[in-house]
């Protein structure tokens, strides 16, 4: 086989019709009778979804992005037959505008170190054979035939692996607790209930490399002495669920699951449990309640799941990424793993880098990398000439860090010191157009809605905080509200039962700590500097710039724009002046359609804050910002 065309079939690329590209490529190859020279391979996510659909030509590593089915003919004709790569489909560096051909030369990938995502984008997730070629299930063989259960736990402990679900608890110690717990019947659970909005690395890992997670799970099951396992996965991830089903079936056929695995006498099997949409189920005890068919409410620990978990039996729960790391550690050893990463946290971290960033996607870097490197070197910085404002890590339980924090390194301790958390790895970049008050409100509205309601501090406290933030957003807040927020936050952090409540105030506390002046502007000046909070802004049409075309008027859903566009004043110089359009702030719902409708060359409409006082002739003001 001379060429392998790897077509990404992750959720991102599939939503850009990558399956049609596969069909088109197969057709072109068949028409030219090249079946013997070219293989079209389905792969999982390459992590660069923003540039999708992605096709990589292996083994050379040519990276084509933004591919459409119509490009298939040219790709086959030029690249495969003619030996000339199709330059127009190369990746264009957004900073230097240089066209880059090879995967390995693209800054987004060049600066990454992929351990957890090692196979993602390279192997066919629906074919166990492909995984086997890439050392698949070798670690399981080694663990079952060459290592004792204690030996495995020692190795994992020595490696320094910490749980990648967010809390960062040492994995080896967790396993040890469960192994030492009394009872013959034990359970192994993989937590794939990736609920953080803005995080999708678990989904991508399951879609692109499900066997590595299964292998990690079987090894963990063996080490702790469990005979049965569950993968608790979000129902919102249909493709991940499908690929897991395929992987489990194939693993059973090959004897990696079931009775007497690899003739070791160890029996282990697992099943998939689909979540039903409750963020709190990411919490261990809530997740266990959910598997048992109950309301997914957390309960106090102790007893810890390692002592009394699923069906009252000792249970070990690990995150997808933790488990996907396990096979590598078993194969390459604890020392190899602990040589990567920072003093505090070993290994790598996977981030879903999204938001106002040039290169959006999955990024895996050694722990200890600076935020600046991730955002600017790998992510390419902020697009459209805007300024960086904040970066949010840890989802709704994390916090927003300002520019001064960009040289902080990422690991569990460093981020904690800064007031945020590592979390499961969402990293959302915000620019000057993002309103900090609005973001704080958003995160809190999420946790408030997802609060299970069991304990009062979380249930009532988050509601109170949300109301205050809502008032500030509308320009109705007082300075006293800021103290009130801090006091409520303290109570909720200290008195809530589970991590959801304990961390819920983080976004508010960090934004208050780093961006207090923006809160004050909303309260004292009734001004939203990012021009986001609807109660504090007005849309205005510039009289000088407006050409009277009426595009905005046709698009306005509420009929807030008046003016006919007819010639009103034929001037003496022979030039005619058309009547410009005017927005009535009383009718305007601030949806922004007019700004998009206004021709790019004209750009006559802008937003201003504070809002223009409610008078009928508003709109002619020139205080555009």
């Amino acid at each position: 086989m001379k060429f392998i065309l790897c077509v990404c079939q992750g959720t991102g690329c599939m939503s850009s019709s990558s399956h049609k590209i596969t069909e088109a490529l197969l057709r072109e190859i068949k028409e030219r009778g090249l079946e013997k020279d070219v293989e079209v391979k389905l792969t999982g996510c390459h992590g660069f979804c923003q540039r999708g659909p992605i096709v990589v030509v292996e083994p050379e590593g040519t990276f084509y992005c933004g591919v459409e089915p119509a490009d298939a003919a040219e790709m086959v004709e030029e690249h495969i037959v003619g030996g000339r790569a199709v330059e127009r489909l190369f990746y264009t560096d957004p900073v230097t505008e240089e066209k880059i051909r090879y995967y390995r030369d693209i800054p987004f990938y060049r600066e990454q170190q992929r351990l957890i995502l090692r196979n993602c984008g390279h192997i066919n997730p629906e074919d166990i054979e492909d995984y086997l070629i890439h050392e698949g299930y070798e670690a399981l063989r080694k663990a079952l035939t060459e290592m004792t259960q204690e030996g495995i736990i020692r190795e994992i402990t020595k490696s320094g692996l910490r749980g990648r679900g967010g809390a960062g608890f040492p994995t080896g110690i967790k396993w040890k607790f469960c192994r030492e717990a009394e009872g013959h019947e034990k359970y192994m659970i993989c937590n794939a209930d990736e609920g953080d909005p803005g995080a999708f690395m678990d989904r991508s890992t399951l879609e692109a490399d499900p066997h590595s997670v299964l292998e990690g799970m079987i090894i963990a099951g063996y080490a702790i002495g469990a005979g049965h396992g569950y993968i608790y996965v979000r129902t919102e991830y249909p493709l991940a669920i499908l690929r897991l089903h395929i992987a489990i079936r194939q693993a059973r056929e090959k004897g990696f699951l079931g009775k007497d695995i690899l003739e070791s006498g160890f029996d282990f099997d697992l099943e998939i449990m689909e979540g039903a949409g409750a963020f709190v189920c990411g919490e261990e005890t809530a997740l266990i309640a959910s598997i048992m068919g109950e309301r997914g409410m957390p309960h106090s620990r102790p007893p810890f799941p390692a002592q009394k978990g699923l069906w009252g039996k000792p249970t070990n729960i690990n995150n997808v990424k933790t488990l996907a790391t396990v096979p590598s550690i078993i194969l390459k050893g604890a020392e190899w793993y602990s040589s990567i990463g920072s003093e505090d946290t070993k290994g790598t971290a996977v981030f879903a880098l999204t938001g106002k960033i040039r290169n959006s996607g999955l990024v895996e870097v050694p722990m200890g990398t600076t935020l600046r490197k991730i955002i600017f070197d790998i992510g390419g910085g902020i697009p459209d000439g805007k300024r960086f404002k904040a970066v949010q890590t840890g989802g709704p339980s994390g916090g927003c860090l300002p520019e001064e924090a960009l040289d902080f390194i990422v690991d569990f301790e460093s981020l904690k010191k800064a007031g945020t958390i590592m979390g499961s790895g969402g990293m959302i970049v915000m620019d000057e157009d993002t309103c900090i008050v609005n973001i704080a409100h958003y995160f809190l509205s999420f946790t408030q809605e997802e609060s299970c309601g069991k304990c009062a501090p979380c249930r009532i406290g988050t509601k109170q905080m949300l109301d205050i933030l809502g008032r500030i957003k509308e320009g109705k807040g007082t300075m006293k509200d800021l103290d009130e927020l801090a006091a409520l936050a303290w109570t909720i952090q200290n008195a809530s039962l589970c991590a959801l409540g304990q961390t819920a105030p983080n976004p508010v506390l960090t934004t208050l700590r780093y961006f207090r002046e923006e809160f004050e502007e909303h309260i004292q000046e009734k001004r939203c500097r990012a021009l986001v909070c609807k109660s504090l802004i007005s849309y205005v049409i510039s009289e000088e710039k407006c050409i009277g075309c009426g595009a905005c008027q046709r698009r306005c859903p509420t009929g807030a724009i008046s003016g006919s566009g007819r010639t009103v004043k034929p001037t003496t110089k022979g030039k005619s002046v058309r009547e410009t359009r005017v927005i009535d702030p009383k009718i305007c719902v601030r949806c922004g359609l007019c700004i998009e409708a206004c021709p790019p060359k004209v750009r006559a409409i802008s937003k201003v804050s504070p809002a223009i006082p409610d008078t009928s002739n508003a709109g002619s003001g020139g205080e555009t910002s």
Partner: protein
Amino acid sequence: MTNETADMDDRLRDIIEQHDSDVKNLIPILQSVQEAYSYLPAAAISAISDRLHISEDVIFGVATFYTHFKFTKPGEHIIKICLGTACFVKGAENLLEILKDRLQIEPGQTTPDNSISLERVACLGCCALAPTIVLDNEVYGKMSSLKLSKIIDDLLEEKGKKKEEQRIEKNSDLEKPEEKTRGVEESKGQVPSGTTEGKT
């Protein structure tokens, strides 16, 4: 009417038996019922209650805890708008306002003619394509107010057309009404994909 209940009874029995008639499997049972009926009909809940020997309260208690379960029949088309952080930062809140305004419904509701349901979801995991919406299981990425407006235009136009067709069908004696509806379905598939547009 009795046929319908008998039919539901059979289907429910199958579903519950597939899950070993075990109350431990209540959530998977509810998921299967919802898959079959696109929501949890009240009659189904009482039937599950009978078969599993647990009270309806317990079932409702579990079902209402999880956002996945619906208790009213969803519309013919379902628009899900993602309000994950990445989408939010890129203006999804405003898109939701536009949807609410154009469809005149709140998230979780269905238009009175049962044609369109609006749902908000926490994260679809397509953050790199933010902001995204899902229309009938097809993801539309890199949305803008204008693009969304056009999608709604198409949807409402189709709705209008369908009404018109139904009116004609009712009035005239068309022999193959089935083919007619299929034609409409096909044209639905050709709604321009937002993601292809988004690439320019």
